[in-house]
């Protein structure tokens, strides 16, 4: 079964994870730009991070046959930080035109401050200008209120709901997103928040229309294989394979293809890689002979 992992922060994962993902059938990953665990102090750190997402990280992924895409944004946490917020907004347009950038994200709310709202709305406008869908981070604290506020702001901007993926959803948010016509993302974690068992129950009850699942794996306790693990659980629970495939492959592709940049045909084959290549003089080989790998 082919898998499109629509939310994973490979920047903070080890090379072995790429190998495990490829073996588990992951053909493509999407890496949303995010908070790095601590605030950055100047815009240069963002520039270097964005360049890594379209450069080294994409190259590293391709070395394992995995297509790498990303979304770019000022994340809600650092939207609160006046050292960087305006300057990041000024550099975003050039990055939103990159071929591997399939959307604007993660945007949304976290602490639900006025500044977060200001930059969320500004980035919805940017997404419209660049004709890209948006990946919306919804708060982990006071979720329902924050979820509703996100929706209000999206409505205020008259942003098309079909191009909105409200991420980190749960049983409480499903009905809201269904009625709105936007997409629901479910982040499956090993020990907290949504887990594979709960996800199986959700699919059995609601089906898979406009649903995507992801691992949101990052630098914390998380598991990059949560999508294949959940796919296995779904099949074991009696969900037809065609439905599972739609959930983990066609659905994320359908959502992110809305920007017109995702060449679906290219995903039929693994990403091509030349182990002799380096990126800015760097390779994943660490001195090993490419002919022996």
């Amino acid at each position: 079964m082919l898998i499109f992992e629509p939310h994973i922060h490979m920047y903070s994962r080890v090379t072995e994870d790429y190998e495990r993902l490829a073996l588990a059938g992951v053909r493509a990953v999407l890496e949303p730009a995010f908070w790095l665990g601590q605030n950055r102090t100047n815009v240069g750190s963002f520039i270097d991070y964005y360049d890594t997402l379209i450069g080294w990280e994409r190259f590293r992924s391709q070395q394992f046959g995995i297509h790498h895409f990303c979304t770019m944004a000022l994340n809600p946490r650092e939207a609160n930080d006046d050292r960087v917020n305006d300057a990041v907004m000024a550099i975003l347009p050039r990055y939103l035109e990159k071929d591997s950038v399939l959307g604007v994200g993660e945007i949304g709310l976290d602490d639900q401050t006025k500044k977060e709202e200001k930059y969320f709305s500004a980035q919805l406008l940017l997404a419209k200008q660049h004709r890209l869908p948006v990946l919306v981070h919804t708060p982990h604290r006071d979720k329902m209120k924050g979820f509703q506020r996100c929706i209000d702001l999206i409505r205020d901007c008259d942003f098309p709901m079909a191009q909105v993926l409200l991420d980190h959803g749960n049983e409480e948010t499903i009905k809201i997103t269904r009625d709105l016509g936007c997409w629901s993302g479910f982040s499956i974690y090993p020990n907290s928040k949504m887990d594979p068992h709960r996800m199986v129950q959700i699919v059995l009850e609601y089906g898979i229309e406009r649903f995507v699942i992801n691992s949101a794996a990052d630098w914390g306790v998380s598991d990059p294989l949560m999508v294949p693990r959940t796919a296995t659980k779904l099949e074991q629970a009696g969900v037809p394979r065609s439905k599972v495939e739609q959930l983990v492959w066609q659905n994320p592709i359908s959502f992110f293809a809305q920007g017109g940049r995702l060449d679906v045909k290219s995903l039929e084959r693994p990403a091509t890689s030349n182990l002799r290549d380096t990126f800015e003089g760097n390779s994943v080989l660490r001195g090993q002979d490419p002919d022996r790998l």
Partner: protein
Amino acid sequence: MQELANLESKLGTHAAAMRVLALEVCADRKRLPVVFPGLPRRFGKDLLREGRITFGTALLDLGAFRTCDLAAALLLLQVAVTEAEGFDLYEHGDIEERAMLLRALHVLAPSALTVRMLGEVQRTNMVLHLEAACCDGDLLRRTVGQPGFGVVEQNRMLLKIAFLDLPLARVFHAEQLANQELSRMLQDLATEREAAGRSIWRDTDRLISRAPVAGTIARILGGLEHGDDGRRLAAVEGLILLNRKDLAPFAIERLAREPRDVVRKLLVQAAG
């Protein structure tokens, strides 16, 4: 002007759109890094069905250009891209954007930007970028002599081409850059590769024979007995370039056993 019009015409119906973009960038230079990444989506990635052309003093094979590469070249030409702007596009571009920029250099006059870009390409080992900058045109030869790009830099570049096994024939007029220091470097690379049981650059003999140093003749004569047809072909071409009558007996001796017609014909020539 006529040359530029001819080049623009290769974009077909897209030529007008490219001129509009150029005007947009001329009016606001900050638009350059925003419009540049979108060129493949606007102009397409299909290869141009064209052959070799001259543009000013440049010789290039348009058949290696995609429509977006040509659009990039014309855009940068018409907005008179500066070194700082060009380097910014490279520095913050993805792999494809960088390749597009490097192909575009073939159409721009060699400059400080060209020197800087070739330096980056030499440093980074990316085959796609080395091809874009050095292959299917004579940019490398035209850049030699620019401030900061002399024989040392040229040799380093050609050694990288050998290291990554790119065909010499695609680096137009590179044979004119042969020199004894380069021959020594190429022979050392070949020896090192052979010691590791790896293949060597097939075009080695074609370059070292133009500027022979100690060991060159032995290497070329040894190449006449190589099991790889391409290596034997290069060796006999090298033998002809050496133009040494005293070496003719080696060609005659090999001729009797050579199975490949293309090699045999050249052996006849080398045998004098």
